[in-house]
């Protein structure tokens, strides 16, 4: 099993198998509390909240709140934390988590300065931790654990891995996959920032050897070259499972940021054409519309049977 499944799901011999503890940083904020409730409703085992200055209180009368991640980890032993603090407080919150032994940090905030992200990535490397995000919808194993802000309806347990830069496109495409009978074994939101704690290629490495994964869907967008690098990795690694991609932003003008900080084409760097042609080289069909993704995937599945 891959390490990400060890962290999110665990192994049958562990007492917390399929109920790994999650800490919510910023649990008393409007956004954090809303999504903490949604995660609880989904079945995620939230074991602690963190809000500096509110230690000793309880969330929803049951989940203890601590002043720091260190206190929360000491009390619960949790290895996963999700951060909902405003962008300007992200650096401090992330350092607190990584220095307290958190191994999977899901960074929800949008608008985190790149230098802060770089600093957090460097610290995570030092500590052997994984960062998902920032500016991510999160990560989930459908019907088991959700560490993020995704609505539950689009997702269903199954055997397809979905990696996406965009949040709403992750929902949209997972929805059409689910409707076509393709459930998901894991979905990972990479995030829409220029620099990602987990790049598409890292996410691919996390899921590529998972035995129950039958197919891979990559949802990219203009900006940077992470899709190109992933396509190259797929070629080099000899990965043979049915794979389909979708790239948003073909019609976007150059040198304009299209909503996401990372969605910008500079010259030819980051263009949709460049990404599509690399996927074609890797023999990965690229859907023209989100609704076409399950159709192409079914085609690929048919070929490999």
């Amino acid at each position, binding site marked *: 099993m891959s390490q990400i499944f060890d962290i999110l799901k665990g192994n049958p011999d562990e007492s917390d198998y399929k109920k790994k503890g999650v800490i919510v940083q910023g649990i008393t904020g409007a956004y954090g509390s809303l999504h903490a409730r949604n995660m609880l409703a989904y079945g995620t085992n939230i074991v602690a909240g963190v809000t500096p200055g509110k230690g000793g209180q309880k969330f929803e009368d049951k989940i203890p709140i601590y002043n720091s991640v260190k206190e929360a980890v000491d009390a619960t032993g949790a290895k996963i934390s999700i951060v909902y603090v405003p962008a300007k407080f992200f650096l401090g919150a992330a350092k607190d988590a990584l220095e307290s032994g958190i191994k999977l940090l899901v960074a929800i905030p949008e608008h985190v300065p*790149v230098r802060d992200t770089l600093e957090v990535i460097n610290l995570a490397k030092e500590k052997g931790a994984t960062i998902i995000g920032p500016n991510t919808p999160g990560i989930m194993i459908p019907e088991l654990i959700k560490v993020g802000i995704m609505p539950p309806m689009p997702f269903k347990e199954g055997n397809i891995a979905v990696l996406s830069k965009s949040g*709403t*496109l992750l929902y949209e495409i997972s929805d059409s996959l689910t409707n076509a009978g393709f459930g998901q074994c894991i979905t990972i939101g990479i995030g*829409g920032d220029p620099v990602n704690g987990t790049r598409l290629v890292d996410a691919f490495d996390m899921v590529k050897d998972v035995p129950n994964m039958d197919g891979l869907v990559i949802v990219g*967008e*203009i900006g940077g070259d992470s899709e190109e690098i992933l396509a190259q990795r797929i070629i080099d690694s000899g990965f043979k499972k049915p794979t389909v991609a979708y790239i948003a932003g073909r019609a976007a*003008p150059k040198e304009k940021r*299209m909503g996401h900080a990372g969605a910008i084409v*500079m010259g030819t760097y980051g263009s949709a054409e460049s990404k599509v042609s690399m996927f074609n080289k890797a023999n990965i069909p690229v859907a023209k*519309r989100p609704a076409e993704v399950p159709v192409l995937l079914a085609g690929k599945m048919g070929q490999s049977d």
Partner: protein
Amino acid sequence: MQLLEYQAKELFREYGINLLPSISSKTIDEGRENAKKLGFPFVIKIQVPVGGRGKAGGIQKCQNEDEFELKYPQVENLTVKGEKARAILLEKMADIKKELYLSIFLNRSKREYTIIASAEGGVEIESVKNQIIKEIGMGNVSDETARDVAKEMGLEGKTADGLVDTLKKLSKLTIEKEAELVEINPLAIMQDDTVMALDGKFVTDDNSNFRHPEMEKYQEKSEIEERAEKSGFSLVELDGDIAVVGNGAGLVMSTLDMLSDNGGKPACFLDVGGGATTESVYEALTLISKMSRVKGILVNLYGGIVKTTVVAEAFIKAYQDNVIDLPVFSRLKGTESDKAKEMLKDSRTKIYDSVEDAINAAVMGVKN
């Protein structure tokens, strides 16, 4: 945000990078005064936040007053890749020996800052030959690294010293102002072997703006852009006639692509952000009503937990308040969509089950 050349040069000057004398103007009257101060001959340069202005005729030599009166208005009225002149820069002419290329940028896939340098500058980066590429972590350039770059570029003596000095100042600027890209192209070797920045490109990390109040003066925003930002929207204005609204950058880009594939011309990209509320959709419609070229509005919302009735309320209110008088073609994924359709039965807003249907209707709708 991409700064204009004259703004980038203000920062270069502040950091001690060598520049030719230059003055910017926003009107021809100001330009005339600047011409007197600067003295002929000089170059007239259009200030736009995109590349390719030279090819578009946005850089003109100017020898005397007659030429000035002819060329200043020509340059001022140019459009480069859809961008009008934000200002005009007059700059003294340079007697140069050679053009180099130098930049520091955020390398997204390597996740560190990177130097690109070349002894063959003056052309667009894609065409710059013999690139020297050096990764520099968080952006700090040591004396040793700078010397290595100069050596690899084949520079010696005074010119090498100049390159080292410029590169270290560029690094300081990148770090202190949190730039994503700082580029000098060309960096010129002058007849006396000093080096000088003839052009400047500077892209900020907008997410770090809260730490840089000193950079606020470079923000040039239209009223619409300012209101969009206040509401937490992302807005990019385009030149077509169908406004595209949705929630989530990826979804709106995707809608833009599909609209273009079907022969529609997007008038804007408007991402109202993660959730959609009556207020946010109402404000989005208000902003669109201020764009005169718009003939129809295409709305693509993936609600998830959002109630489509809440969005329908925004449409109804916008028509009632006479905020909009345009047809709306919408696809609303979420709960209570039957109820929303019923609410909008007699209005100019139509709800479609699929985004494809909404797009086709919008393309047909604006033709009439």
